[in-house]
């Protein structure tokens, strides 16, 4: 992997910003509330510290995992704290979902699908590459267990992961989520080449 300089990182951050902006708009249309987001962090994280970043390994969350297919490979993991995922479901299904039903699970997967698709289509359009999300899959469990899949995928390559992370929230503040994009080993090169050819 080519080393990224500060201006490359800025560019990736900006791309991510626009992508997540579209995703937030899509979510806001879905739930009928305004959705805000924080400026995305583009960072290199130590894999072993990810569960702690999310509030401790045993914290219960809903995780929606999608693989990124097409010209660049990678994965998207959306993590909603348990109370946020329930708030999201009750907003969309107009009823309390306790425990998590089949319908509630599909709802969360669909939210993940909409966010990931919005994000990837923006990124793909801007870079002239094809990025397609796989079928989403859901786990409602301890965050340590939920992030394992990503840690193992990335752990075969190294101990640190290049992560695009953002947090979005609705204006009443009872729904929060974390969005992680984890580029596969060769994807950063593909993205940087695409940026290079755009800038001619």
């Amino acid at each position, binding site marked *: 992997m080519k080393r990224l300089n500060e201006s490359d990182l800025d560019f990736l951050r900006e791309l991510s910003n626009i992508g997540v902006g579209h995703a937030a708009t899509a979510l806001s249309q879905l739930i009928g509330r305004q959705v805000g987001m924080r400026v995305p962090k583009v960072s290199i994280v130590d*894999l*072993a510290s990810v*569960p702690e970043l999310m509030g*401790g*390994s*045993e914290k*219960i969350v809903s*995780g929606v*995992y999608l*693989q990124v297919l097409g010209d660049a490979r990678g994965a998207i993991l959306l993590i909603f704290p348990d109370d946020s995922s329930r708030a999201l479901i009750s907003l969309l299904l107009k009823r309390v979902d306790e425990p998590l039903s089949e319908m509630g699970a599909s709802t969360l997967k669909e939210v993940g699908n909409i966010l990931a698709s919005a994000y990837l289509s923006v990124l793909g359009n801007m870079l002239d590459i094809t990025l397609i999300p*796989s*079928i989403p*899959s*859901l*786990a*409602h*469990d*301890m*965050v*340590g*267990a*939920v*992030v*394992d*899949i990503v*840690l*193992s995928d990335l*752990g*075969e*390559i*190294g*101990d640190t992961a290049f992560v695009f992370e953002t947090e979005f929230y609705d204006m009443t503040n009872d729904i929060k989520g974390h969005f992680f994009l984890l580029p596969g*080993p060769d994807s950063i090169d593909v993205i940087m080449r695409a940026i290079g050819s755009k800038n001619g």
Partner: protein
Amino acid sequence: MDKVVVRIADYRIAEAPATLVTYGLGSCVAVALYDTETRMGGLCHIMLPSSSKARDSGNPKKFADICISEMLEDMENRGCNVDRMVAKIAGGARMFDLPNKEKSSSIGERNRDAVLIELAKRRIPLIAEDTGENYGRTMEFHLGNGDMLVISLRGGTKVYRDEAL
């Protein structure tokens, strides 16, 4: 009670009456080794089956093969003997159903299989196992009596006791 926390891709060794604990195992596997005479035990939390196929080794303790041998060597340096050891393991779940990965076995299954091979190589008997399925687990290993507690959102707390210990 003395609780020693084992982080992902790491191991810890302690002696009775301490408890070794590791949180939030998904596809990862926790391996507890226990010397029945010294009542000393080790617990490791591995992420990947084998160091041989990896592109970058990085922290080698994420691999089952390396982590188990390092832990074992460390235990033997502290007076344990592999011939008196028993093992209990937990984890190795398949957290997400991945449609296009169905054909291959999941990383959780591969981790479990790699651990079993490492144990078999050293003739360490596996006396309790709580692995597979699709949910996360926290594992506690009580060195006072050799109990393994597996705590999960779905299944509550399960105790794996062996009266012989």
